[in-house]
């Protein structure tokens, strides 16, 4: 078998060499245009911990990443996203309403708007972690311009330590299929 070691690969090369299958190729047809000249830092979905997350904040989002994963929102926060396609998208948001805030403000209603249109007004009766997702009509969205999402809570929570007016905690948000 040891003697066959060098012979078989050589025979293989000899045989394979006769088949004319190329092993060098040109770039193929591009399925989408490249993001030239400078790729947009905006994407369609962000986790608060992502390096590029801050590029998506317009207003009302804390600059401080807490616990390596989440950020406080002010009572009204606005984010922006960039989409490459519009069909069959859902707005998805992972967030939390801290239990401690309920003692002060009770149940809350969060209004979610996409490009100025109200997507949902959702009521939360108790504290905890939540995932919101709802299909967004393709006609509300656009591909060549930014898409704006507004998150507004009806009752702010006033932090006892510094009197800051806060909304709720956001972990991730954006559009998914």
């Amino acid at each position, binding site marked *: 078998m040891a003697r066959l070691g060098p012979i078989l690969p050589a025979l293989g090369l000899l045989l394979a060499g006769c088949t004319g299958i190329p092993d060098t190729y040109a770039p193929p047809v591009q399925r989408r245009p490249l993001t030239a000249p400078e790729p947009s830092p905006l994407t369609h*979905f962000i986790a608060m911990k992502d390096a590029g997350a801050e590029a998506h904040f317009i207003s009302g989002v804390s600059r401080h990443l807490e616990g390596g994963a989440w950020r406080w929102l002010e009572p009204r926060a606005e984010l922006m996203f960039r989409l*490459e396609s519009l069909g069959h998208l859902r707005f998805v948001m992972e967030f939390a309403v801290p239990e401690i805030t309920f003692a002060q403000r009770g149940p809350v209603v969060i209004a979610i708007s996409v490009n100025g249109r109200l997507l949902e007004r959702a009521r939360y009766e108790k504290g905890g972690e939540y995932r919101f997702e709802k299909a967004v009509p393709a006609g509300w969205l656009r591909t060549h311009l930014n898409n704006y999402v507004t998150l507004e809570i009806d009752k702010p929570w006033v932090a006892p330590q510094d009197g800051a007016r806060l909304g709720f905690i956001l972990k991730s948000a954006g559009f998914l299929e």
Partner: protein
Amino acid sequence: MPHACYILYGASLTVAVALALGTLLVRALELDLRRQEEPLVALAAGAACLSQLVFVAATLGVARRGVFQAFGLAVVAAALASGLHRPRGDALPALPRFWKRLVLILAAPFTLLYFFNAMAPEMSPDGSAYHLGLVARYLRNHGFQPLTTNMYGNLSQGIEMLYLFAFSLGRHSAAALVHFAFLAALPPAMLAYGRRFGLGPAAALGALFVFLSPVVGQDGTTAYIDVAVAYLLFVLFYLVQIWDQERNERLVALIGLLAGYCYAVKYTAFIGLIYAAGFIAWRLRRARRPLLRPLATLGLCAAVPIVPWVAKNWIWLANPFSPFFNRWFPNPYIHLSFEQEYLHHMRNYIGLRSHWEIPLEVTLRGTVLCGLLGPLFLLAPVGLVALRRQTGRRLLAAGLLFGLPYAGNIGTRFLIPPLPLLALAMGLPLASRRVLAAALAVAHGLASWPDILGLYCDPNAWRLVKIPVRQALRLEPEESWLTRKSPPYPIARLLEDATPPGSRILTFNQVPEAYTTREVLVVYQAAFNAVLGDILWSAIIPEYPPQRRLTFRFPSTSLTALRLVQTARGGPDHWSVGELRIFLGGRELPRRPLWRLRARPNPWDVQLAFDNSPATRWRSWQTLSPGMFLEVEFPRPQRVDRVAVECSRDQYRIRLRLEGRLPSGQWRPLAEVPEETELPPPLGLRRAAVYELKRRGVSHLLVWDEDFGAEDFRKHAVVWGVTLLGERNGARLYRLD
């Protein structure tokens, strides 16, 4: 003519032509065979000749019913005219009356059982999926066409060539009846061997042990090939023993032809050639006779059936032994990872907890390893007593050799090829105790009869269950029987009914391709199909799409080529790259047509890393090893300062390094450690995946309810862009819109 007559006509003409060609060859070689031996040897030799002729017809594109029929009738007419049908030669010594009666009484009901099952509509899993699926395809195309999407088409198909002849005249059941002919000829061949070498009673016992064995009956009545392999190997052994007795040099030519045909029938039966060459060389050496000429004759004659199959694969698939040995013969058609996984699965059947379970599984249970030999074979160690005799040693040595491939596939039917030799060895010590031996044979027959077998084997054991006389004679229509008894059959008919001719259907499990004219791509059966599966799953499995970006930054440098090198070793990870992007000054360089892309391994898919599709990726399709690379060559020096690799998360062990080639031609490292960032899940993956499938000619998707992702297709058909066309027996057919 009623359907049943066509079936019998197709099978009979095929066997008759094989017998005629074989007899012609045997008589041309002027071999001194006995009267009972000649037709048995002729069947094997003629099968080799007919198979070769059908191969030529398929290569020339004239594999048509009319051609086969005209040729077959002409051969049979010529054989009759020249008296080939008249027996010739001295008779073998008669079998003692007791043993003759025992064989007749026990074999007769099983012959009926087997005949009617072979003639009943063919529904065996592999027979209807690929043995006859390929045959039907060849007949539609009037011969071979390059087939790179079904690895079963790469195997040698010496028996399938006979099936092609029979199928053209009598369709599926005619092919199964050809296999039955080998099953029916096996006991007479064993008896003839016994009678020639003075082992009649032992041979009678051995023949019964084999013929009544449930898995032999099940296999030999379908369009599988294992019993034919057993027959050919046994006749080869028999001829070698005759040669040892007579030292007729012309016999070596026939032995060579048969040994080569064994390879042409099944790769693993190549062991027959090793046996024949080894035995002849050993005997000649002991007798101090020249070796070269007999071995050259053997080799040259063996090459006749072997070379066409090797050449076909070499020319079309760049691997003469495809789908194996892909490490030595790298090619775009079979992934190395598939070969490794396939071989692993063949050695470790799902459901088998330990290899210690094999003896009970192959003798009593019959589900996990697909079939059972019967409890009698728990006594197989009795055969070791035969070691005391030279004949026994020869039988067991050949049996051991022919059984070696079983280590590579532990399914019960892979024990069939050495079974005649083992059974003869068992018969040797038992034959002297006539009553005990007869009792064992009767008990084996009773235990193997379907009604009794069902009392002790696993309920789902692969076995015959009844004598389907009405179905064999087509008093019950084929369609009705198959629809009732074969769950995959209606699925094949769904493909036929709901898709237009020329449709290409991607699926995850094999379907009875012998019953549809549509092209079916099963994801595991070829590299092309596996890439389609990878594309589809990228939309479902979170670890598959590109959600990692590895960025190499370095001072702007003028380069003539860039190479991304993988340096880690080990499994189970494969290396893959979704997109490789090259930047200068914050701007991605457009991919120019004059760029040249290379990869190692799997250079043939390198474009998948440069197509800007989130659904596709270049993949090594083998576990990590240092030196794997992706390379871009520029037509002229190009300044570059950043390279980004977008890749999936299912490859935690990869280690990457970036190298560049300076205009001087020297390669140098550009960056060792990339920055890593997370990317969000790409949008539109499902649509992108379907788009890529359609680009590759796939028009439909067949998904079983238990397939991975089946629920996603059901729930999100609109998102995928697919339309449900129909559902049969838990399989859903979607059209890609």
